[in-house]
């Protein structure tokens, strides 16, 4: 009962963060999946025993630690990908802005843009 309450509380917290605009909906999906897996692990003994048997872990509760480690790795990887995408967009925006500024200073359109003098 207590594990279920904790999971529900965390889910409510997740929803609150999304509603307040503090967490992007897309980025909340891995967290949601993590909560689902933790809920399954805390409510279903056979799930944990199955994982333990698959990995050859003799003491089944240790499998929960393994599950948590994999969840954390997955979350970190997701965040790293998100940060990389942000960086790429930041660079693209910077280049676009710089060209906009230079276009004003050059005081003329780029030759391709003017449509003149093209061969």
């Amino acid at each position, binding site marked *: 009962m207590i594990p279920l309450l904790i999971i529900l509380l965390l889910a409510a917290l997740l929803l609150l963060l999304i509603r307040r605009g503090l967490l992007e909906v897309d980025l909340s999906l891995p967290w949601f999946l993590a909560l689902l897996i933790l809920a399954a692990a805390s409510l279903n003994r056979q799930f944990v025993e199955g994982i333990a048997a698959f990995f050859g872990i003799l003491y089944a509760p240790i499998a929960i630690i393994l599950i948590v480690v994999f969840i954390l790795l997955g979350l970190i990887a997701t965040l790293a990908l998100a940060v990389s995408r942000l960086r790429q967009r930041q660079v693209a925006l910077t*280049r676009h802005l710089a*060209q906009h*500024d230079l276009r004003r200073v050059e005081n003329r359109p780029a030759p*391709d843009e003017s449509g*003149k*003098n*093209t*061969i």
Partner: protein
Amino acid sequence: MAVDADRGEQGHDVLVFVPSLNDVDRLGEISQAVAAALPLARLLVVDDGSTVPIDRRILGVDDLLVRLPTNMGLGVATHVAIDHALAYGYQIMVRIDADGQHPMDAILELLEPLRADREDVVSGERLNPGAGNGGLMAGLVKGYFTLVSRLLTAGRSPADVNTGFMAMNRTAMSILNGTNLYRFPEPQIFLTLGRAGLRLAAHPIHQQPRRHGKTTLGWFQAMRLLYRFNVIALNETLGRRRRP
């Protein structure tokens, strides 16, 4: 291919790119020296998020100045210059550093083989690389970059792949335009262009000493540089060869 008739009249076929990060002391001198040595060239200063924005008045009237909103790194600054050079039909882009270490009179020697279409990229090979660049760590890291670059390009890359003094034609610019240049992009530039089969040449120069400060490389920074370069080198080796 677009031809800019205006440029033919003005003769602005060379873009001299100067990246600057909190390095303004010699920009005025550089602007005047470039105007004297290359009256046909256009100077583009890219302020890579300096703490104090560069004062436009220290540059010449025809010089271009663009300020990036935050420090994005030399790779992005180089992309800004290449984007502009390609968009406005510049045939050659020269890069020189804002610290005034690169001799202005050597620019013409870099340009000559490019104009004659004998080379695609000409770099200034420092005969005295120790001037202003301190530290055993920096020397080791740069030596490694040079060794790997020459191995992967079958000797095509220059002996000094860490130099920021270089000139390149539109072919080289187009190839770099399709890549992602990172911080400290010099070895990546020579590695990428060498692997693409471009003609790379080096011209010996004597680097002026720094007026203040020196390059220092701590262990952590060295490890990051090594890691980044190795990943780029592996990527270039495994990926499809870029063709001009």
